[in-house]
């Protein structure tokens, strides 16, 4: 109590909160000092700090605990305002115990010792930051960030809107000029399924494994979208893994490419100029892609539909205001809401678990194997192509637009200073984004 008037957060602050704040500060440092995905890591880091300051209530959900059966209250095991762990006994009845299904703190104790309660009668209201299965343990968001998280992320609004903005920022031209690169984007999805299987082997459930596997798609909104549908309790870990590894693409991808290619292969020259793609082709592509993909995988409609409508804004030439808004103000707004909410999904009690470490390890495997699969397919294609392609561009199939294409460009120039691979690598790069959205839709269709 501060001057006996109000509560401070200190009594509820523990080492886990301190560790999370240190991790958040590292993310913010990397963003500011090393320029690693600053638009994402700064708000994510700050959201992490906010949610690890007890009693701030930014990420609170209110939940009402009910008596599992009728009985008389024998003992109340806690006090108002006191924190408790998952599985703690809140009060004991002569017929059983009222157990908290989540971690949190007591808001109000509604019953007294000696009182008779009926089955289903509310005995206490509690505040928690844990995502729960609403069908089993209904809760309602009461904090600023929990409301944004609930109605933005859990209702699957913000990730597709982010995809709309990405569509408005994406130039499919290099891919349309060289459609073979679509295959490289497809091959890179191998990483998704490899990580999916590995996650199953180490004990994750099917929906969790799908949410972990999709990290290899290297698309933040896709990862968040799939996790919000299939495994919302691990959304913080999957999102942070995805965004962190996207920032670490220059460190993760080059060793994989070097391992799978010879110096001669890395030096393969590709003509710098691509076929010029007509405006009609650029307009037709988002329309036809949306129709084909959504007809085959209806559960990808939200992501693919938004991605393609955003791209149509960019290419059609008559929606300049919409294009400009989606590319600037709107993408910034969505980024702020989405990243703060994701940062806030990481209270220490949720994040500091062994499974988080496993998710981070599986995420990096997913990224690396995705790049590797793209490179290997490019090498395989070279067996049949008259004009060889530089297999390094397959590594850009891992998406992470445009970071992985830039990495390939830098590596290509090192091997052969005359080689300008950027536009060639952009093909598999944007194809990877489409592939990841389809893979996410398939996971939701089967497991959702």
């Amino acid at each position, binding site marked *: 109590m501060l001057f006996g008037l109000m509560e401070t957060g200190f009594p509820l602050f523990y080492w886990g909160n301190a560790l999370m704040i240190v991790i958040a500060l590292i993310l913010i440092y990397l963003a500011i000092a090393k320029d690693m995905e600053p638009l994402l890591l700064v708000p994510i880091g700050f959201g992490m700090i906010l949610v690890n300051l007890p009693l701030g209530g930014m990420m609170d959900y209110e939940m009402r605990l009910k008596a599992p059966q009728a009985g008389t209250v024998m003992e109340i095991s806690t006090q108002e305002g006191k924190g408790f762990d998952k599985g703690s006994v809140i009060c004991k009845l002569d017929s059983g115990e009222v157990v908290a299904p989540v971690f949190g703190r007591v808001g109000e104790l509604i019953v007294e010792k000696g009182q008779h309660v009926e089955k289903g009668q509310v005995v206490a209201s509690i505040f928690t930051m844990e995502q729960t299965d609403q069908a089993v343990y209904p809760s309602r968001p009461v904090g600023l960030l929990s409301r944004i998280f609930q109605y933005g992320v859990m209702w699957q609004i913000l990730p597709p809107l982010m995809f709309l903005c990405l569509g408005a920022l994406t130039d499919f031209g290099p891919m349309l000029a060289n459609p073979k690169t679509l295959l490289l984007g*497809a091959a890179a999805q191998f990483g998704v399924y490899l990580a999916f299987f590995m996650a199953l082997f180490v004990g994750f459930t099917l929906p969790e494994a799908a949410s972990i596997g999709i990290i290899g798609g290297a698309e933040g909104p896709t990862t968040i979208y799939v996790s919000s549908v299939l495994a919302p309790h691990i959304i913080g870990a999957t999102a942070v893994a995805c965004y962190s590894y996207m920032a670490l693409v220059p460190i993760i991808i080059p060793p994989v490419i070097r391992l799978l290619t010879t110096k001669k292969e890395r030096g393969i020259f590709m003509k710098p100029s691509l076929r010029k793609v007509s405006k009609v082709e650029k307009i037709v592509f988002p329309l036809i892609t949306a129709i*084909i993909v959504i007809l085959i995988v209806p559960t990808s409609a939200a992501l693919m539909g938004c991605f393609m409508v955003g791209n149509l804004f960019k290419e059609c030439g008559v929606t300049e205001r919409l294009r400009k808004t989606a590319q600037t103000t709107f993408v910034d707004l969505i980024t702020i809401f989405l990243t703060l909410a994701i940062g806030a999904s990481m209270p220490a009690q949720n994040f500091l678990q062994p499974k988080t470490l496993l998710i981070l390890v599986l995420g990096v495997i997913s990224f690396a194997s995705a790049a590797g699969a793209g490179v290997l397919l490019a090498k395989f294609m070279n067996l049949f192509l008259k004009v060889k392609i530089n297999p390094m561009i397959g590594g850009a199939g891992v998406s992470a637009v445009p970071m992985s294409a830039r990495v390939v460009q830098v590596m290509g120039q090192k091997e052969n200073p005359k080689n300008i691979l950027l536009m060639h690598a952009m093909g598999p790069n944007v194809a990877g984004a489409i592939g990841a959205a*389809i893979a996410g839709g398939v996971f939701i269709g089967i497991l959702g």
Partner: protein
Amino acid sequence: MIDWDLSIKTAVGGFGLVFGILILLMITVELTRVITEKFFGGKK
């Protein structure tokens, strides 16, 4: 208990579907180019 049958179907079917759709898109892109050049004279 993990349903391995469903897991394998999810992975193999999913990867196959992603590949199949992207091949279909590749063919569509080529067709669009051909049709565009034929009817619009490759208008840029």
